[in-house]
């Protein structure tokens, strides 16, 4: 038999002005199971709380209802007080007679009657409340960072500097990501390599960072604080421990004409290669698809010339399992390609630009490699087709972006700025050349960004033309650009030597597959979704997984780095405790009744519902039932409302509790 204490608050006059609190208390006292009912001026004040604690011990109360303000205001306060008096905090409920009653009604009679009802409902509910033990989970204080671009590098360094171990997994042979490809960076025009490479070296040398390059995530299991991650380390064919990075193998490899992806396929590399000289680690990999040895069985030159004998053709992929407590996803972006019309997609693509078949029509990243001092041309801006310096260069913005029929409807955010940068770099290098930019509008909202764009026009003499280009075609060795200037209202034609397309920023290939492994959500473009666009922009809805950089949406470097540091801070907050405590509002399956339909599993947005095998003593499989992982469950209750057998139950919001409230009316 429950002994409930009801405490009605005046809130100064906030409640008592319209609600007759004495009458409410008197009414409460008549309800079955109520052992005592009192009112007090300020329940949340020290004396108010003392009164409550005293009543609990003196009256041997089993449950408590505080009729006062909104639970969003003081539920925590009173549950703590109740706990202080030795009662389970979840046996205390609040009846909201202020925000939902005294403040919204003027008629004293009506308000009092309603307050009585509200208290009555909560009394009935509270009777059904159960003791809920606090849920705590241990925290493994190691973190996984996926993706070694500037986002991943920054996050890894911040976490490692705080003294926690970090496992950094990068798909390519070297870390660095796209920033390593850039020439100079807006808005300051400092050299990308100069600010990037020291950080890459820091990663390599950091005692707390384990670096797996040329590796991918195979499997992710577990939940916040307790993930087990399987990493596939692809065979490099070079032993990382023994290789000294001398590079002799690369000078001797006879396969020299393989387009280097890092140089946007303008530069060439060998079959055994590092993508760029400053690569970290500086250990080459053999590209097995292009290596003569792997194709025909002959060659093996690299092995012969390698002093330390590091080349190992027999090497196999290895699987490594790492236990971590938090994951930072930083897999970055890719560029939209006008030469590939996505198969089976309704998107039209850019046939009017020759589907990428005009050799001197390049994308922004290719221009970066041309302009980069360490690029394939040593920083000379030349045409891919004939190596001549372009004197008339046309930039076209918003290619693939903001074009729902051609590619993507969103704005890629960085291309207005990098195009302005490109016009400057071009002007610095080709003094007698002229840059033209076709654009719709310049999106430059950042510190010193608009000034930067204006500089491109006012000082670097780029000609900006407001209007898009309809068609590009090769005419002799020129590219005819058919555009329009909508401000003037006339068509514009330019015979260009080279055209640079500001192609859209898209998530990495296969971003969706990785998300499925991680159990995080992604939008229709495959960008990863944050838990809340404004207030939780670096967390995934899935607890323990955080986002950094362009994998979440187009970003420039300053934003990427801010988000990476923020994600690192979130990881450190998580690691600041040994165990995680969380509200015990989680779903629980009554296994006896579960028919294994897994309707619950389908609706759970957190992947908290797992399949559990029930076996007899001999180990024979009897049936498979649902089981909720309390570490993952967020407590929404959707599963419960969905279960046709009524055998999932959300603690704190059981059917019993709710029906009791309805019946109290």
């Amino acid at each position, binding site marked *: 038999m429950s002994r409930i204490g009801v405490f009605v608050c005046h809130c100064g006059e906030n409640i008592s002005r319209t609600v007759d609190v004495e009458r409410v208390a008197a009414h409460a006292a008549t309800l079955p199971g109520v052992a005592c009912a009192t009112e007090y001026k300020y329940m949340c004040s020290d004396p108010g709380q003392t009164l409550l604690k005293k009543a609990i011990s003196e009256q041997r109360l089993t449950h408590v209802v505080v009729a006062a303000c909104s639970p969003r205001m003081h539920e925590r306060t009173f549950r703590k007080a109740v706990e202080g008096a030795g009662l389970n905090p979840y046996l205390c409920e609040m009846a909201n007679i202020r925000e939902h009653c005294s403040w919204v009604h003027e008629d004293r009679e009506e308000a009092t009657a309603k307050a009585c009802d509200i208290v009555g409902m909560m009394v009935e509910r509270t009777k059904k409340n159960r003791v809920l033990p606090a849920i705590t989970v241990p925290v493994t204080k190691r973190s996984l960072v996926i993706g070694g671009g500037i986002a991943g590098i920054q996050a890894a360094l911040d976490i490692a500097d705080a003294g926690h171990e970090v496992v950094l997994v990068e798909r390519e042979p070297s870390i660095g990501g796209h920033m390593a490809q850039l020439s100079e960076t807006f808005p300051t025009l400092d050299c990308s390599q100069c600010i990037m490479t020291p950080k890459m070296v820091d990663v390599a040398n950091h005692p707390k960072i384990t670096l797996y390059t040329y590796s991918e995530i195979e499997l992710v299991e577990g939940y916040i604080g307790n993930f087990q991650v399987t990493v596939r380390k692809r065979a490099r064919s070079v032993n990382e421990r023994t290789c000294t990075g001398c590079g002799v193998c690369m000078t001797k490899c006879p396969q020299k004409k393989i387009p280097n992806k890092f140089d946007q396929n303008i530069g060439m590399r060998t079959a055994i290669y590092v993508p760029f000289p400053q690569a970290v680690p500086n250990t080459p990999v053999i590209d097995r698809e292009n290596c003569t040895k792997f194709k025909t069985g002959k060659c093996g030159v690299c092995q012969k010339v390698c002093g330390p004998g590091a080349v190992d053709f027999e090497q196999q992929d290895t699987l490594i399992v790492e236990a971590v407590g938090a994951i930072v996803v930083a897999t970055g972006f890719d560029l939209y390609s006008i030469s590939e019309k996505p198969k089976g997609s309704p998107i039209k693509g850019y046939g009017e630009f020759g589907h990428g078949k005009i050799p001197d029509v390049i994308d922004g990243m290719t221009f970066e490699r041309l302009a980069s001092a360490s690029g394939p041309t040593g920083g000379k801006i030349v045409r891919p087709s004939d190596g001549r310096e372009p004197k008339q260069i046309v930039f076209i913005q918003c290619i693939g972006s903001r074009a729902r029929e051609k590619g993507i409807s969103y704005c890629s955010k960085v291309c207005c700025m990098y195009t302005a940068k490109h016009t400057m770099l071009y002007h610095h290098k080709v003094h007698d050349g002229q840059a033209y930019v076709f654009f719709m509008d310049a999106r430059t909202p950042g510190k010193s960004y608009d000034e930067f764009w204006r500089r491109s026009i006012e000082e670097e003499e780029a000609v900006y033309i407001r209007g898009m280009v309809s068609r590009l075609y090769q005419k002799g060795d020129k590219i005819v650009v058919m555009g329009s200037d909508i401000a003037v209202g006339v068509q514009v034609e330019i015979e260009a030597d080279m055209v640079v397309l500001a192609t859209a920023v898209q998530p990495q290939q296969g971003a969706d597959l990785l998300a499925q492994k991680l159990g995080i959500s992604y939008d229709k473009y495959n960008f990863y979704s944050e838990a809340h666009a404004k207030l939780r922009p670096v967390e995934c809805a899935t607890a323990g997984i955080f986002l950094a950089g362009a994998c979440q949406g187009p970003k420039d470097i300053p934003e990427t780095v801010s988000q990476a540091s923020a994600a690192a801070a979130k990881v450190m907050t998580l690691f600041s405790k040994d165990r995680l405590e969380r509200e015990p509002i989680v779903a629980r399956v009554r296994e006896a009744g579960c028919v294994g339909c897994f309707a619950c599993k389908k*609706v759970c947005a957190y992947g908290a519902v797992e399949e559990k095998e029930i076996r007899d003593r001999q180990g024979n499989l009897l049936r498979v039932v649902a089981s909720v992982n309390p570490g993952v469950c967020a407590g929404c*209750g959707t599963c419960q409302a969905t279960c046709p057998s009524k055998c999932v139950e959300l603690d704190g919001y059981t059917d019993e509790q709710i029906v009791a409230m309805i019946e109290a*009316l």
Partner: protein
Amino acid sequence: MHPEKNNSSAFEPKIIAFVCTWCTYAGADLAGTSRMQYPSNVRVLKFPCTGRIDPVFILKAFQQGADGVLVSGCHPGDCHYIAGNFHARRRFAAFRKLLEFVGVDLQRLQFSWVSAAEGGKWVDVVTDLTETVRALGPMTEFKELALEEQWSGALTTPELKEAYLQI
């Protein structure tokens, strides 16, 4: 326990609101902190998410003498639990058909989105529903239907199960 007025012949509808804690409950709180006024007929039941709201509760409410039911949660895309409100909407869309089938005037059951910032909207929604239901008069259908046993939670027949899975 109707909030009976002095003039006891006037019908005062009983409205039950099922709301999610993150958006609508907070929106109703905001109406309070802003001292907005609305009819006192509504009783609020708080859920973590509209996804938790089982249609059975709505039936239950009608059986218990509610004359109107309001279900309200976060706007689409704003669900605190990613997609709970989405599942709820799907479920309720099917459920409305069921109610219509058994002859309930659908004006008595309203769904809306009220965010934590929409105190004013909460007031409007509650006022509207109260007035609508007041005009419709007391709800009698359900007492006659007496579905209580069938809908106590157990799905006894294959047809019911089928219907339920559709919901």
